[in-house]
């Protein structure tokens, strides 16, 4: 029973649970059964994948399996190599924790029969995409994943915006899949040998390689949420139930990253260097645009969805760097950049799932997603707020958590850029570095806003005032993720060495071994160049904090008195005077918004003595939506309107159509040489 066979069995079990869930969707107790089953199966898959990754599968002799399903003359191929093992770990870890979370959260779902059958199917689909080793199996599981997540987004279909989000999502997913159809059509060639092994061997001219890369950016990029194709993500992810949004944001976007790495790095092999430029520009643009949108949001789940877009931008910047270094033969630097990307994939799946779980907990407790109606939850939901705080600090890339380590590795990779021969890259990389730094700082501000407005201050509505802590299972899932964030931040050496076989199989090179460096610090290139020790920084801070606390407790006074807030002498101000999400982002909106979103603020102050209330309105435009998507929709509508007349013609006019077709064809025959 090889690990691969075990994994395929787990996927089959997941799909089986889905079918069973369809059959008895109505019965009350099916919720714990389905989520329990998916917890168990994802758990088994997680252990298998982790074991095979740790055991260090030889990247060449990875185990392969062929089933008689799929394309009739090809069968469907499955393969487990280090890259697949790593992404399976990420997916199934997400699966386990979201099933655990759902065991508690699922009870509040008022239409379980619309969520239960599709959740295990969604997990099974994602696992299948990673295991697939031929174009057809890959694409059928890819599109099946989209279909299952579309059904989950449509779970709460009574809300018109959810239906609209579901529609836009499935249409863009289909656009992405058609792009992938074309890409694999080009890769397979006229003979139509769709197996990945055959594609790897066959030689691809540089033009096709470039075209396939662009198509991958369209296909996988639209699923991950790269800039121009990201509009569906902030609509669809929040529309799904929270444990599904966590899976979609934290895990499904990683499946898209896997698809990009598998085709561009593994199947295509050598790439031209300028393809790195495209990815760097798109990645950094996505990062900055995504986080600026997040800052403007006041809906908690949409804010998290936009922040996913920013993190995906970071990952693609690291991938772009890896591609540029690999194209110029700088193996070590490419391995460093790829490790940074993979590390951030792991980190993002941790803290984004954690944050979405937190948002789900807030939604269950208060029934509200809009931050301006929350506040003061830290008093009512202590554990959730601590865990959400850990997630926010981690995502803002602050030590000692994991977000900082992958950010630090990315910066070290950027600092390798002077050795790049091409001028274009030499100039572009520092600019991209600047944009990354800007997006990191904006992320920190965004999550100060997210945590501050939601959890701190005084409750702005009665619902926020009467919130209750969520159940133990959800808290358990969130606490595990928080612990993982801290562990990955403190012991990065172990994670980097775990990623080594993956970078070896994809780039052909690896980072120097980290675990045997003294004091568990990590040294990407050389001791003198740079090193970082998460553990010592964490312990050093704890030591000095406890030392200070002890000294103060020992020598300073311990007197403490509760009193109404000072607030510069203003008595009992109402909770409405607190800063809301919009007002917190107002300075940043004034700095960046005028350029990116054409923000116009209009203040209508009535003359003194005039009883009219003062009005303040902010008008912002999502330029990509207005300049790219609305014109396309308009054009299709216009064409449909114009063609619609053909439905209401007289019989005579239809006959003249036939007549013209006949005359035209006869003319072609007459003129044909």
């Amino acid at each position, binding site marked *: 029973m090889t690990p691969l066979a075990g994994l395929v069995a787990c996927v089959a079990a997941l799909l089986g649970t889905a079918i069973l869930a369809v059959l008895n969707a109505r019965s009350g107790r099916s919720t714990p059964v389905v989520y329990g089953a998916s917890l168990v199966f994802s758990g088994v898959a997680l252990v298998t994948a982790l074991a095979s990754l740790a055991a260090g599968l030889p990247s060449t002799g990875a185990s392969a399996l062929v089933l008689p399903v799929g394309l009739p003359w090809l069968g469907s191929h499955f393969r487990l190599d280090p890259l697949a093992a790593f992404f399976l770990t990420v997916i199934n870890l997400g699966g386990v924790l979201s099933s655990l979370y759902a065991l508690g959260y699922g009870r509040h779902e008022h239409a379980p029969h619309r969520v239960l059958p599709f959740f295990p199917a969604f997990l099974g689909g994602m696992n299948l995409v990673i295991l697939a080793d031929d174009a057809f199996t890959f694409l059928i599981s890819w599109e099946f994943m989209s279909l299952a997540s579309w059904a989950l987004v449509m779970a709460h279909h009574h809300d018109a915006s959810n239906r609209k989000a579901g529609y836009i999502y499935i249409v863009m997913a289909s656009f992405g899949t058609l792009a992938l159809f074309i890409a694999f059509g080009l890769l397979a060639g006229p003979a139509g040998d769709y197996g990945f092994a055959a594609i790897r061997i066959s030689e691809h001219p540089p033009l096709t390689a470039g075209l396939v890369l662009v198509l991958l950016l369209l296909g996988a990029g639209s699923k991950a949420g790269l800039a121009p194709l990201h509009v569906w993500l902030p609509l669809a992810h929040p529309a799904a139930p929270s444990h599904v949004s966590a899976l979609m944001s934290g895990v499904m976007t990683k499946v898209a990253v896997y698809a990009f790495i598998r085709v561009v790095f593994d199947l295509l092999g050598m790439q031209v260097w300028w393809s790195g430029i495209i990815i760097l520009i798109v990645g950094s643009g996505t990062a900055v645009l995504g986080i600026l949108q997040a800052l403007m949001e006041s809906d908690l789940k949409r804010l998290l969805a936009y922040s996913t877009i920013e993190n995906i931008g970071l990952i693609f910047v690291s991938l772009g760097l890896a591609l540029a270094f690999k194209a110029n033969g700088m193996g070590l630097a490419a391995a460093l950049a790829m490790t940074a990307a993979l590390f951030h994939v792991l980190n993002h799946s941790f803290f984004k799932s954690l944050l979405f779980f937190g948002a789900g907990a807030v939604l269950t407790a208060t029934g509200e997603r809009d931050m301006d109606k929350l506040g003061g939850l830290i008093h009512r939901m202590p554990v959730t707020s601590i865990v959400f705080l850990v997630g926010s600090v981690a995502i803002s890339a*602050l030590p000692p958590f994991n977000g900082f380590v992958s950010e630090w590795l990315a910066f070290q990779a950027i600092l390798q850029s002077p050795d790049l021969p091409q001028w274009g890259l030499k100039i572009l990389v520092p600019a991209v570095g600047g944009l990354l730094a800007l997006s990191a700082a904006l992320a920190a501000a965004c999550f100060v806003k997210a945590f501050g407005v939601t959890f701190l201050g005084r409750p702005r509505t009665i619902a926020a005032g009467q919130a209750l802590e969520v159940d133990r299972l959800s808290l358990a899932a969130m606490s595990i993720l928080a612990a993982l964030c801290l562990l990955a931040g403190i012991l990065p050496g172990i994670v980097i060495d775990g990623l080594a076989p993956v970078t070896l199989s994809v780039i052909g090179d690896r980072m120097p071994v980290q675990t045997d460096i003294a004091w568990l610090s990590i040294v990407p290139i050389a001791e003198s160049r740079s090193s970082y020790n998460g553990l010592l920084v964490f312990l050093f801070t704890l030591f000095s904090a406890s030392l200070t606390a002890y000294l103060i407790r020992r020598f*300073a006074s311990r007197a403490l008195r509760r009193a109404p807030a000072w607030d510069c002498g203003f008595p009992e101000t109402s909770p409405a005077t607190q800063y809301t999400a919009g007002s917190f982002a107002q300075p*940043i909106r004034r700095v960046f918004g005028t350029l990116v979103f054409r923000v116009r603020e209009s203040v209508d102050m009535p003359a003194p003595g005039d009883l009219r209330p003062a009005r303040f309105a902010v008008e912002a435009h999502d330029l990509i939506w207005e300049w790219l998507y609305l014109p396309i929709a308009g054009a299709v509508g216009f064409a449909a309107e114009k063609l619609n007349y053909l439905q209401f013609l007289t019989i005579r006019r239809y006959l003249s159509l036939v007549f013209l077709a006949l005359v035209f064809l006869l003319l072609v025959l007459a003129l044909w040489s």
Partner: protein
Amino acid sequence: MVVISALLVQSLQMAVVVLLAPLLTGFIRLIKARLLRRRGPSMIQPYRDILRLLRKEVVLAESASWLFRVTPYLIFAITWVAAAIIPTFATGLIFSWTADLIAITALLGSTRFFLALAGMDVGTSFGGIGSSREAMIATLAEPSMLLVIFTLALIAGSTQLSTIAAFMTSPQVGLRVSLAIALIALIMVAVAENGRIPIDNPATHLELTMVHEAMVLEYSGRHLAMIELAASLKLLLYISLIACIFVPWKLAALGEGPSAYLVGMLAYLIKLAAGGALLALFETATAKMRVFRVPEFLGAALMLGLLATLLRFVSRSL
């Protein structure tokens, strides 16, 4: 034996850093007063303030949570750690290998993060004003700081402060335009980070203009003492950072005799005094900007940082 002496030097550095910080703040206030032809309080007045605050009773707002009470200790501890890593009188400190320049910036980022949260915890509008303005300033200051670090890392080939200091004293550095631009950018960022005159007035409590003060409005007693100490420690940190990178002479290397450390300590005190005096001079010469002209000021810093990095890339020599 070497490890123990290194530990001794490291703990000496930590002690020195904490003790000198209030003195530096007092010295700057004294210089500013004398420039304005005022007698001004004595240099050791900050010590008295801190001790007074330590003895006073903490008045806590009803809506304040546990985060409000933990933050002062956390901010002071992180700033202290960051200050302990930056070489002041000696390079090659035992802890300096745990975090490089990017990590130090990130540590300072987390202090800002928690301070902003503390500002919003009590739920008053002034805390909100402080936090949102601090967030806006941070979104521009941190990228400029990182771009300065890129420039230094590309010139010195490392982000480790000890290596940079060693490189700066070596003959290879020579006079570089990008280093000069980086210095200016670093000074602008330092001024913004510490809330000095052009960005924020540390002396006044005027609600509309303040940024740093608004966040700590609700603090009192020993918490306020911790925050005041952390603020002055941060000022010392930035001045010693500039000194270590751009004025690295007379830094005692690892393992040299006590005489080298004495010389290093003396040189460090002179650098601090010079830095403090220059800052005081700079502050009395300029007036505070309106809050929404700060983005242009910091935008300039960001552009200078990017220019320094690009110039550095364009040719090895520049």
